[in-house]
């Protein structure tokens, strides 16, 4: 290869983006993942002991539909059994699960939007986008900084607690009704939606809101008219994406006593009805898939309309 060509290749290679922080972080993460096997002391070998394999064999036998155990496979009987299960618990559980997820994500959006305005660095200042008439006092500026930082800390804190834990606490306080599941999902996702929306608001071009400020709009007016319509498309994409996750979580929150699918799954397991247990777990998977499809469809509609 000629010297000129190697020189060109070397020059190109030298311009590749190299970020030392990223590379060290990646190395640290990979070290952690690999090292966990060394340090963790997991006793994976015990999982395949004689007793556990017998347990597994018995479990696999018990997941056959109850009317078919000990007999040959009969599709008609199996379908009848499935229909009975669906009519008895399946449909209601699925409906409740979906209802919980929808209400939770709507409440999360309702809470997340105002919080996002407080968390957006471009908006949570005494003079967003353009300086005003009188320069604000030091106390006012400090106050806004504290409010903005506190909101962002709140969003991070609320996001860091898993939904299941929120629901656990709320069930202890409110009892096994639907509110704990709805609120747990709503609070956790408000943190996520708030953070994502704040980023979206920050990244919108400054021309339109600055112009509105220039003609004297207040912060609320700038957000409502200058930022929100442009941010709506992105917001709806995040909204449906998080709804999909809410559906997944709503199925398991039932295990805390709230009447969603998880409740009936745990109930079947506790009663030793391993056939119904597996059937309901598979039903949960179908609900999640349906949610995935609806969410993908909605997101495609939103993207095409914008």
């Amino acid at each position: 290869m000629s010297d000129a060509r190697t020189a060109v290749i070397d020059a190109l290679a030298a311009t590749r983006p190299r970020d030392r922080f990223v590379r060290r972080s990646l190395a640290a993460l990979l070290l952690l993942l690999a090292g966990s096997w060394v340090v963790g002391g997991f006793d994976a070998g015990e999982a395949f002991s004689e007793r556990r394999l017998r347990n597994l064999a018995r479990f696999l036998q018990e997941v056959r539909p109850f009317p078919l155990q000990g007999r040959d496979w009969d599709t008609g009987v199996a379908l009848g059994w499935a229909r009975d299960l669906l009519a008895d618990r399946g449909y209601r559980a699925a409906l409740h699960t979906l209802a919980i997820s929808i209400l939770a994500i709507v409440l999360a959006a309702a809470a997340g939007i105002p919080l996002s305005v407080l968390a957006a660095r471009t908006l949570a200042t005494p003079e967003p986008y353009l300086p005003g008439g009188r320069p604000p006092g030091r106390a006012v500026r400090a106050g806004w900084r504290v409010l903005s930082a506190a909101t962002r800390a709140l969003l991070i804190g609320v996001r860091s607690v898993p939904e299941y834990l929120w629901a656990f606490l709320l069930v202890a306080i409110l009892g096994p009704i639907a509110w704990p599941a709805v609120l747990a999902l709503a609070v956790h996702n408000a943190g996520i939606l708030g953070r994502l929306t704040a980023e979206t608001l920050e990244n919108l071009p400054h021309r339109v809101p600055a112009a509105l400020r220039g003609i004297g709009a207040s912060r609320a007016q700038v957000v409502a008219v200058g930022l929100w319509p442009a941010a709506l498309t992105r917001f709806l994409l995040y909204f449906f994406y998080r709804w999909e996750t809410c559906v997944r979580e709503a199925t398991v929150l039932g295990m805390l006593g709230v009447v969603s699918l998880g409740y009936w799954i745990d109930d079947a397991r506790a009663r030793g009805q391993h056939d119904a247990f597996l059937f309901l777990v598979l039903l949960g998977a179908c609900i999640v898939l349906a949610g995935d499809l609806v969410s993908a469809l909605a997101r495609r509609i939103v993207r095409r309309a914008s």
Partner: protein
Amino acid sequence: MAPDVPRRPFPVRERGAVLATIGAAALASAVVLDLRPGDLVPGRGLELAGRFFARALTPAWRSEADFVPPGTSPLPWNALEAAGTTILFAAAAMSLALVLGLVLGFLASTAWWADDPAGGRSPGRLAARSVLPLLYGAARVLITGMRSVHELLWAVLLLAAFGITDLAALLAIAIPYGGILAKVFSEMVDEAPRDAAHALRAAGASGVQVFLFGLVPAAVPDMIAYAFYRFECALRSSAVLGFFGFPTLGLYIRQSFRSTNYGEVWTYLYVLIGMVAAFDLWSGAVRRRLLA
């Protein structure tokens, strides 16, 4: 960034329809669940709530149990140890999930075989071209099955089948996360910009070479960013698995809560929040630099 002068009017009518539909769905859901605003005021739970939240600012530094066996480690050390176990479980599960995600993601991606120009009619080539779509389809179905079951449901399933063992916890997280990673990785590679790939193909590279050197490097930053995000989710899932009996933070939270030692609960909660928030800040910094 949006263009300065839009070429089409903004879809105002569709916006109203979408928001109205969402609002109606929310109302219907509230009706289905038979929710009453009155239920939000805790009746008997109010006292418990009061006692619990009163301890928010005074987490325990010492075990609050009535009887503490001699030789038990002090509470803050216990909490940090539990956090360490949580991280180790999440890391081991994530390593399995990454392997699954990379292998299945490769099989579920069409980019390495779909555009191959019809070169050669050797029996090996023909066999490959009829087998590969089946492999792709099988991978897709497997991935969908793996990721549709929530990790806690996998945990319940594996506990019922295997009993309580470390592997059950690891697989409970690794299986769904492997599926999710596979789906996301395959999509990232399939949607990566094709310029470098076309150039390599014009220079005569084979299908797999084009894939490995033309497509994958373009998708790698997104893949790494997503892997960091997934690990954060794995940390949270690992903590929650403690509620099912595994030795992570969730176990201690549940135990202390049931024994009404609310100060201890707050100690564990703060450690959990600190752990996840710290990782969130780190992974956020990495992702910002990767995706810039």
